[in-house]
């Protein structure tokens, strides 16, 4: 049974999330049901608990109990519910079956943001130490790397050295040029990648091809603090990049193909002396300015593109990938007439990072995505987000879709024309 102090501490966390927007989301739902078919989990699995309004209701009942007069005085009429261990289990089920894709939000006539409501659930789980352990561990690992650059600098540089030959194989350099510049003060662009080679090699080749004055960040872009819903850790992970960008006096921070990293950097950093771009926006700009040229014959087969929710629906990068794809293929096929209503891949919100623990759920809850891709008849499924790529790869294997799941940046790097 939950003791009073624990409950009080958790309610303080709840209170910390109650800004005007959140109160509006908590008080506005009319249960019209428009969101019912909007959620890919409900559309794929068909259970009431996966309806967006139901998820929200789990949080809303706690709100009514502790933050509204009627719920305090007459809880049965106010549909209020006490914060208990069972309530926390319900919050877990709601929060970690939601990918935060916000498809329900674009259908909701009031624009209720389920992802924001789930951020209350996630914060309470963090407070009760009931969050997925692996997400906290990954957040802490990320913070640890940021705390002591000197401790990890040598191994970071060693890792970068291992990638240089492959970068040069995609774009030959002139004598004296550096394949992967690091820690360059006064660079125009700071590229924030993921820890993996696949996030650095194609990007580096394209920056070099475009003659960009760039430098690679010491830090990885992904924000596991955001996945686990811990605002303090989210800020710590974010601040490392902001501080590095200021120290190097860059004009632009370019975030790799990672949806959450881009949305968090774009929307939570406030006013800064640099602009924030997704790598897809930067690549589209290079093509538009004639800084890179692409060979369409390198891409074989029809291509479709999965819009990562955090980059497209939630951050507005919709036209740029299509502009790039016009320069990569003659046979591009849309997944949907209106990209804002694209189905989520089913891997967001930290679910992919939770690995095999969520695999069965991720496969079952994204069958509508599989149908959407199969309908196009495309052979190449491009995307621009690490989570989406991993999830789509899992779906491809599980459902034997027979597509080639590709990062957009990797397709660009492979199609670079060396001399023009």
């Amino acid at each position, binding site marked *: 049974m939950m003791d009073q102090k624990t409950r009080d501490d958790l309610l303080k966390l709840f209170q910390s999330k109650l800004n005007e927007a959140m109160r509006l989301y908590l008080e506005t739902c009319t249960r019209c049901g428009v969101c019912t078919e909007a959620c890919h989990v409900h559309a794929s699995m068909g259970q009431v608990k996966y309806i967006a309004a139901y998820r929200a209701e789990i949080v809303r009942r706690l709100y009514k109990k502790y933050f509204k007069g009627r719920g305090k005085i007459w809880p049965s009429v106010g549909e209020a519910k006490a914060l208990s261990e069972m309530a926390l289990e319900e919050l877990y089920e709601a929060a970690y079956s939601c990918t935060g894709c916000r498809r329900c939000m674009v259908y909701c006539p009031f624009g209720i943001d389920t992802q924001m409501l789930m951020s209350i659930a996630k914060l309470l789980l963090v407070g009760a130490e009931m969050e997925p352990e*692996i997400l906290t*561990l*990954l957040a*802490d*690992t*990320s913070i*640890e*790397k940021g705390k002591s650059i000197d*401790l*990890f600098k040598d*191994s*970071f540089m*060693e*890792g*970068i050295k*291992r*990638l240089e030959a492959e970068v040069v194989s995609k774009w030959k350099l002139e004598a004296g040029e550096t394949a992967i510049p690091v820690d360059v003060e006064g660079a125009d662009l700071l590229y924030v990648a*993921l*820890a*993996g*080679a*696949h*996030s650095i090699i194609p990007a580096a080749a394209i920056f070099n091809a475009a003659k960009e004055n760039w430098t690679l960040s010491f830090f*990885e872009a*992904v924000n596991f603090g955001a996945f686990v819903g811990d605002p303090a850790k989210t800020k710590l992970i974010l601040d490392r990049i902001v501080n590095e960008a200021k120290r190097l006096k860059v004009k632009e921070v370019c975030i790799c193909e990672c949806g959450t990293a881009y949305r968090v950097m774009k929307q939570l950093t406030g006013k800064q002396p640099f602009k924030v771009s997704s790598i897809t926006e930067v690549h589209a700009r290079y093509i538009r300015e004639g800084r890179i040229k692409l060979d369409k014959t390198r891409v074989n087969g029809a291509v479709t593109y999965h819009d990562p929710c955090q980059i497209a629906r939630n951050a507005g990068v919709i036209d740029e990938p299509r502009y790039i794809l016009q320069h990569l293929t003659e046979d591009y096929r849309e997944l949907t007439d209106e990209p804002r209503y694209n189905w989520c891949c089913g891997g967001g919100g930290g679910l992919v*990072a*939770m*690995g095999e623990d969520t695999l069965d759920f991720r496969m079952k809850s994204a069958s509508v995505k599989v149908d959407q891709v199969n309908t196009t008849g495309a052979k190449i499924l491009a995307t621009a987000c*690490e989570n989406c790529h*991993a999830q789509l790869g899992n779906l491809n294997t599980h459902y034997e879709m027979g597509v080639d799941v590709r990062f957009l940046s990797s397709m660009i790097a492979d199609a670079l024309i060396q001399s023009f």
Partner: protein
Amino acid sequence: MSDDIKVDKVFDLKGLPCPMPVVKVSKGIKEVEIGQVIEAQSTDPGSLTDFPAWARTSGNEILKTEQDDDVIKFYIKRKA
């Protein structure tokens, strides 16, 4: 396998992008007893920073790191 370290379990993480090597080792290390050693084989250069940071965070100890052209091997003693 390192000559001077007795390995109790090997984790083949080759081909996995970060952070999956850390995710799998974090879970997998619980399959051995405290004091035993696992060998984690990764091909992702990001592991070179990820594993030491994870070890510091999780309270485990990297005894040795070996690298050749293709594979990075971490010998990790479970301490927590």
